[in-house]
């Protein structure tokens, strides 16, 4: 009898795990409240929101599929340059720019994934880095189109829906980024709770067993890599459109690395790590790095070492240990 109860409870838990919980509304309520409370920080807020989408996309491959990447900026930058080049060459419509960025970045993700996902572990890690560096160098050398070191400028972004103009206070940028992030989050949430998403986690935990039960592991890893690349591309396009600028740093190792840092600060493989890690990191960066970039790097480095040694799950991991997090 007890066994049957436990079984029913387990089935129930599985059936419920994808339902929305009240706690999940908190980030969105906070984001809406921030719009009213900090009107002077909306441009920074818009960047934070877009970066959350980027880190969320990294969480999909890293946290769920277990693909450790040092080159996720490749897709962010591809998306940024796609949207940027469109807007600089006479097509400033933002929504189609986002779609184009998602498609091109997804294509780059698909093609590079075809090549590099054949390896795992250290070899894969190095190859993600090589892909991103190749693109960085390509953008650097194609200065005639990308502006090279100086960055791409001269973007003219049209109003959203032809109505909402990007203003200097960042009101449109903030709302726009929030809406796109919300859609991206819905998609990511749908993916990780789907059978497809569960099979990714299965492959991460025990690849041999997933092969044994007949799951097409390689194909699924490629699919999630492509989707994640597309989302990262949207994030890059968002920042390009809201700041009207694309620089080489959008493809840099630093950006890939920072995404990892923000993710680990928040918590990897938890879907909400990005929502905690990104604001913490970017607000701290905004505060401290301008005053003294050298010391900012020192403390950042020390923090990373400390997180890896003492707080593996990031902020969310600490909460989980304090009280059992629902659904984990």
């Amino acid at each position, binding site marked *: 009898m007890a066994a049957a109860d436990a079984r029913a409870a387990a089935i129930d838990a599985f059936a419920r795990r994808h339902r929305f919980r009240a706690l999940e509304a908190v980030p969105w309520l906070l984001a809406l409240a921030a719009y009213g409370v900090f009107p002077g920080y909306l441009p920074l807020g818009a960047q934070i929101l877009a970066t959350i989408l980027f880190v969320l996309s990294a969480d999909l491959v890293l946290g769920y599929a277990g693909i450790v990447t*040092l080159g996720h900026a490749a897709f962010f930058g591809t998306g940024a340059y796609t949207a940027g080049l469109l807007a600089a060459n006479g097509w400033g419509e933002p929504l189609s720019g986002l779609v184009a960025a998602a498609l091109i970045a997804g294509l780059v993700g698909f093609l590079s994934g075809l090549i590099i996902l054949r390896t795992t572990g250290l070899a894969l890690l190095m190859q993600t*880095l090589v892909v991103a560096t190749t693109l960085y160098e390509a953008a*650097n050398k194609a200065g005639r189109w990308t502006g090279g070191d100086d960055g791409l400028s001269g973007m003219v972004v049209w109003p959203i829906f032809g109505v909402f103009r990007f203003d200097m206070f960042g009101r449109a940028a903030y709302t726009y980024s929030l809406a796109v992030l919300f859609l991206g989050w819905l998609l990511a949430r749908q993916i990780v709770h789907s059978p497809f998403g569960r099979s990714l986690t299965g492959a991460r935990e025990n690849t041999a067993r997933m092969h044994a039960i007949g799951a097409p592991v390689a194909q699924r890893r490629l699919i999630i890599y492509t989707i994640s690349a597309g989302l990262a591309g949207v994030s890059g396009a968002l920042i390009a459109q809201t700041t009207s600028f694309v620089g080489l740093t959008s493809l840099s190792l630093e950006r890939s690395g920072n995404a990892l840092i923000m993710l680990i600060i928040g918590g990897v493989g938890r879907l909400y790590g990005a929502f905690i890690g990104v604001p913490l990191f970017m607000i701290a960066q905004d505060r401290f790095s301008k005053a003294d970039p050298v010391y900012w790097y020192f403390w950042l480095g020390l923090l990373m070492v400390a997180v890896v040694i003492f707080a593996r799950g990031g902020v969310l991991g600490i909460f989980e240990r304090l009280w059992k997090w629902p659904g984990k």
Partner: protein
Amino acid sequence: MGGTLAAILSIGFHGLAFAMVLYLISVGLSVTMGLMGFVNLAHGVFAMLGGYVMTGLMNRYGVPFLAALALAAIATALVSIPLERLLYRRFYGGEELDQVLLTMGLIFMSVAGATYLWGPLTQHMEPPHWLAGQVDLGFRSFPAYRSFLILCGGLLVIALWLGLERTRFGAQIRAAVDNLRMAQSVGINTSRLFMLTFALGSGLAGLGGGLGADLLAITPSYALQYLVYFIIVVAVGGLGSIRGPFFAALFIGIADTAFKYWLPGLGAFFIYALTMVLLLWRPQGLFGRA
């Protein structure tokens, strides 16, 4: 025709010098990755440290070149031991994400630390007077310092390979790379082996950083700036191999020099693209095991 030949000679010479520096720095990284299963992105920090110690000793305290070079290698090896014991060891064979973040953190700290200690400017290395100028090899003359670099690197490579083949320590490393558990079972103290190998690899990196100070400029962002080069050498050579990185370094050193000579507008792009193609053909590198 003579011009092309001279260009090829010159590219071969400078490429070889670059390859020696790349190999000395990267061989330790390859062993750390293959033997301990650890992605040490911060490996370049040791090379940078070697460069700073050497230029500092020479420029500030007037220590002779060879002594400064030896001290740079020794100091780097000594610094690496406590790092290995306290930090790295916990993460051997662990999750790559942890290793990446830990070593990225170390890189950031090294950037800040180097700026604090030595300032943001590039450290210049003046070759000693007996290595200044050109050396005449009969058919043409070459810069003396680079010739010394190639000679030095060549001798070290031979010593390293002979040591790996002929000494007990080398045999232990080979055994541990081939089959770690079996090596432990037959009584090899792998913890001590790891420490010594790590120190040796770091020392060589320090030596490479010092020797190559005029090729890879010593600046605070050294470890980040040249990381991709070191990683590519290991990726192309194959993890855990000692010979692989040598051929990879030769290939990259010479190809990089050639591309920069003939197609300066494209810079390092070709190297990265070529690496991609190579890895497409052999995902585990030239000498790596699948």
